[in-house]
């Protein structure tokens, strides 16, 4: 536990601090860029792009070794991964646009073929002399072991650039995600903006390879915006919140994984993000599950209360258990089901309002007003006091509820 708090406070050593800051930067970039992926409903394209990085890593390693180099230079490996990821992305786009295949089929094809090819390359590299200690399989699930200062700089700089590009393109990308037809009509090149968005996602994927790994980077792109969506109705806020959630997940996840030597970083970061998602799913005020349940219960109670009052006003027996409990809970009926003083008064008012609505429908031909009758909305919210007074004038004086004089 203390190890974890040490890591959180950047006290767990130089390397862990480096990893924490890098992971936070990556989280911001992934959350912000992923927002548009989520809004454009193309989350899974990023999975194809991520898996398409693997052959690039292998090819870059082989190339660097055959040129007499070390083969483990992070920049070289990432450049290689960017090349094959780009090819994979273009292939998905091309298949979806030019063939009769739908995008999900294209994603499935590209993802599996590129990943398969990458695994073959990794196996080949295992047989090479220089390959045994290369540790390339760490790109699958991410690892912080042996991360160098320059690696962290690459991640932080790349992340900052990606955030800047997201900020620059936020308006066209928002417009294309919301209303592509309108975007095209006002002169945006929708295809080019889509490609720019995917290029951003590709960049985040590539710089996240070392830390999170290619299998789970899609989670870093998607979970933060989905989580952010629970808290806001504005797309700009979704971007910022997603960046924040990504940063927190990255930082806390990296600190957690630093507490145990063999713990992979990617899965821990993703689990932290998933924790934030679950929390939001349940506690978010407007869109959360709990709030929805409470809202529904409250609404149900209003319906039962109203129906119960109407039944009282007509002296009809009430059978529904929930209605009885609601009325009893508010002291409108006695335990034996007989209306109390307040209950009778409210029932009379309810009956009168129904009567007022009948008159309103006779007077007002405007469906915009009378159409607002839903059985629940108080008539005072629809009509002005002088209008209601007019209804009452037509109804005549108050009468006893049960019709007996």
């Amino acid at each position, binding site marked *: 536990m203390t190890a974890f708090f040490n890591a959180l406070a950047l006290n767990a050593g130089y390397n862990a601090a480096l990893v924490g800051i890098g992971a936070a930067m990556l989280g911001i970039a992934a959350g912000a860029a992923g927002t548009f992926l989520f809004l454009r409903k193309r989350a899974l394209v990023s999975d194809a792009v991520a898996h398409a990085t693997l052959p690039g890593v292998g090819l870059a390693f082989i190339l660097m070794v055959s040129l007499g180099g070390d083969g483990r230079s992070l920049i070289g490996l990432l450049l290689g991964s960017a090349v094959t990821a780009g090819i994979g992305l273009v292939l998905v786009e091309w298949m979806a646009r030019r063939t009769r295949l739908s995008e999900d089929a294209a994603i499935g094809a590209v993802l599996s073929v590129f990943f398969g090819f990458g695994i073959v390359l990794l196996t080949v590299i295992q047989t090479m002399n220089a390959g045994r200690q290369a540790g390339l399989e760490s790109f699958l699930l991410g690892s912080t072991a042996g991360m160098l200062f320059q690696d962290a700089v690459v991640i932080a700089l790349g992340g900052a650039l990606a955030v800047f590009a997201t900020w620059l393109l936020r308006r066209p990308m928002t417009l294309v995600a*919301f*209303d592509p037809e*309108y975007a*095209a009509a006002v002169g945006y090149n929708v295809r080019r903006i889509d490609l720019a968005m995917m290029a951003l996602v590709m960049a985040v994927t590539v710089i996240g390879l070392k830390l999170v790994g290619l299998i789970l980077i899609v989670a870093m792109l998607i979970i933060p915006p989905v989580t952010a969506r629970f808290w806001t109705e*504005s797309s700009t806020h979704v971007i910022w919140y997603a960046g924040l959630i990504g940063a927190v997940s990255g930082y806390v996840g990296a600190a957690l994984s630093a507490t145990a030597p063999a713990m992979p970083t990617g899965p821990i970061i993703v689990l932290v993000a998933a924790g934030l998602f679950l929390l939001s799913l349940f506690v978010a005020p407007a869109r959360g599950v709990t709030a929805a349940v409470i809202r529904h219960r409250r609404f149900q109670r209003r319906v039962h209360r109203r129906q119960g009052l109407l039944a009282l006003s007509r002296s009809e027996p009430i059978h529904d258990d929930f209605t009885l409990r609601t009325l009893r809970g508010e002291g409108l009926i006695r335990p034996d089901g007989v209306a109390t003083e307040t209950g009778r008064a409210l029932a009379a008012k309810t009956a009168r309002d129904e009567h007022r609505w009948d008159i309103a429908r006779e007077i007002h031909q405007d*469906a915009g007003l009378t159409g607002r009758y839903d059985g629940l909305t108080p008539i005072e919210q629809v009509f002005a006091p002088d209008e209601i007074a007019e209804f009452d004038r037509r109804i005549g004086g108050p009468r006893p509820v049960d019709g007996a004089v």
Partner: protein
Amino acid sequence: MAPGAAQVAVAAQDGRATRPADTSTGAPLAVRGVTVSYGEKPAVFSVDATFPAGAMTAIIGPNGAGKSTLLKAALGVIPRLSGDVTVFGEPVETARARIAYVPQRASVDWDFPTTVIDVVLMGLYRQVGLLGRLAGTHRAKAQACLDRVGMSDFADRQIGQLSGGQQQRVFLARALAQEADLYLLDEPFAGVDAATERAIIDVLKSLKSEGKAVVCVHHDLATVARYFDHVFLINVRKIAEGSVATTFTGANLNATYGGRLAATHIDQLALAEPV
């Protein structure tokens, strides 16, 4: 009235070359020999049309006749197979600032995280540019546009909480924010309440009186004579175009709809007298 079969065949082979270069008229919107095809089935075939300024034009035709397609192709939202489009005598690509488009309501996801005022501000994105700031003046302008469609009280609502008619009004407000000269609307009255229909038609009529050109894809034949000055009848190819008084006739409607329009229905319409 409709082009002869031989003429159509020629146009099909060479949509561009057979047309004289009469696109320099400067009309708000002129399309010449436009063909659009989904797969290998033309949805719009070699259509010529001119839409006048200071008037409201209805594009009328049965379902699948290519009404919306013609509009989108004119805007370059979907690619044309052949043909030219000019806006005020210029190619559509250079005249975009003068065009405002109101797409069909069903074309967007209404659960998108955005508010009413943000949607209207989208109409100003092109003006503001990539690096520009959306300042208070832009917000004031967006608010004024909302006011014009009677939606100023809804500025901060999430768009999904609006009724269909209110959503349509917001789309119209976004188009107004562009301060364009040519307004293209795709079924603006589809599925909206009576109050919204009145509010929209009032705004469109005021645009017309300012000398703007208004073009609507329209499906309700009963309101054509009341709302519009010009009609453009289409069923894949052009059937007829002209003023409501001369063109909105039973014969032309029969040619447009084939047998699909019941005779009793035609009798009830406020049609132009046969000339």
